[in-house]
């Protein structure tokens, strides 16, 4: 069936089968491979995208459900060649090691900061609690989000 989805600000029309999952659609039809697929069982959160600004697991949503809606992937974070403050902070704070969970972590963090510009460490840990990272132990991820929020990376170290 025909759907129109706005991905990272650009609306386009696609013909998709109803059983195609949003994660696969984004990777194979939209060609945006920054959205990763990890567990494929709604557990790890690595396939997170923003749907109308809210983080969701794109492996647990059919592409047809995004008809008429806006999807933001990690490729949509940087604007005009400038990294989003979240991306800059992940880079500076070494908020990643292998990088597999990083697109999802940054999108969840972006949504958190949009809703709450000055989150506490607890708020950050709560917000990323649906996203697994098997490398970092989360410490530098939390630090990066705090830095992006302007809370200062040294406080509480």
């Amino acid at each position, binding site marked *: 069936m025909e759907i129109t989805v706005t991905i990272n600000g650009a609306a386009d029309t696609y013909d998709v089968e109803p059983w195609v999952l949003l994660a696969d659609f984004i990777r194979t039809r939209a060609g945006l491979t920054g959205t990763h697929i990890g567990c494929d069982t709604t557990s790890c959160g690595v396939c997170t995208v923003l749907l109308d600004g809210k983080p969701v697991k794109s492996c*647990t949503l059919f592409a047809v459900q995004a008809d008429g809606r806006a999807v933001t992937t990690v490729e949509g974070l940087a604007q005009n060649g400038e990294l989003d403050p979240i991306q800059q902070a992940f880079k500076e704070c070494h908020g990643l090691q292998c990088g597999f969970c990083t697109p999802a972590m940054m999108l969840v963090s972006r949504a958190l900061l949009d809703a709450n510009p000055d989150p506490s460490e607890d708020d950050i840990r709560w917000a990323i609690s649906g996203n697994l990272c098997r490398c970092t132990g989360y410490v530098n991820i939390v630090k990066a989000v705090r830095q992006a929020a302007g809370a200062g990376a040294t406080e509480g170290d």
Partner: protein
Amino acid sequence: MYPARFDYDAPTTLDEALAVLAERGDEARVLAGGQSLIPMMKLRLATPAALVDINRLPGLDHIDEVDGQLRFGALVRHNAIVASALVRDRNAVMAAAAPWIADPLVRNLGTIGGSLAHADPEGDWASVMLACRGEVVATSAGGERVIPVSELITDMFTTSLQPGEILTEVRVPIASRPSGGAYLKLERKVGDYATVAVATRFELDGDGRIADAGIALTSVAPINVQATEAEQALIGESPSDELFAEAAERAAQAANPRSDVRGSAEYKRQVVRVYVRRGLARCHELAAA
């Protein structure tokens, strides 16, 4: 993983949705938040021939207070309940349970109506509704009927909803007397099913005695359990640690847990005992406040 093929409809009116359901009968499933149904379809545990996506139906995302009840449209997302000041003010059990459902990403899509219709015995809302005496509205082409949640859930993943019916609203009585509620959940990690969870609620009469009580258990039987004998132990009594211990013992006897990776049956039964006692103590604090 891909689910088996299915026909997809995303109607924009309830009448249209009901017509599709009436036509397709029991080969159709309603798609709400999809956070349980889609994983089951991907694992081919569910293979509906038709999905009726109700996410585009208007008027199913309200949280209102009407006639002494909280009323939730079937599409109210778990996170909307977390954020609701009205729920925080009117129902302590729901306010306590909502932040512990699944994880933040699932809570952005998963719905209260879908959760109850799915009837997973490890689901949290059914226990909350049993303790709070919640009801659901089932709508079909023939009209509406109201079903107490105690009669909605008939077995594991099985409800008394009929083919052609959509669960459209959830209704929860608001306490008119001093009351308290709690939902205590033990989970290994965020997003895991409960090892054990316990919903507790009571109301006090003018003499400070317990006039009404609800206790229900998650993940300790093939179905969410209303601990009726534990509830009865409380009625007409003054709150005390001894009374709560007696109710907790009865609730532990009502549990029928299985040993699995989350713990032994005896461990889970002990958690029921401890959580019912703690939950009732929390109810007492809130009711006395």
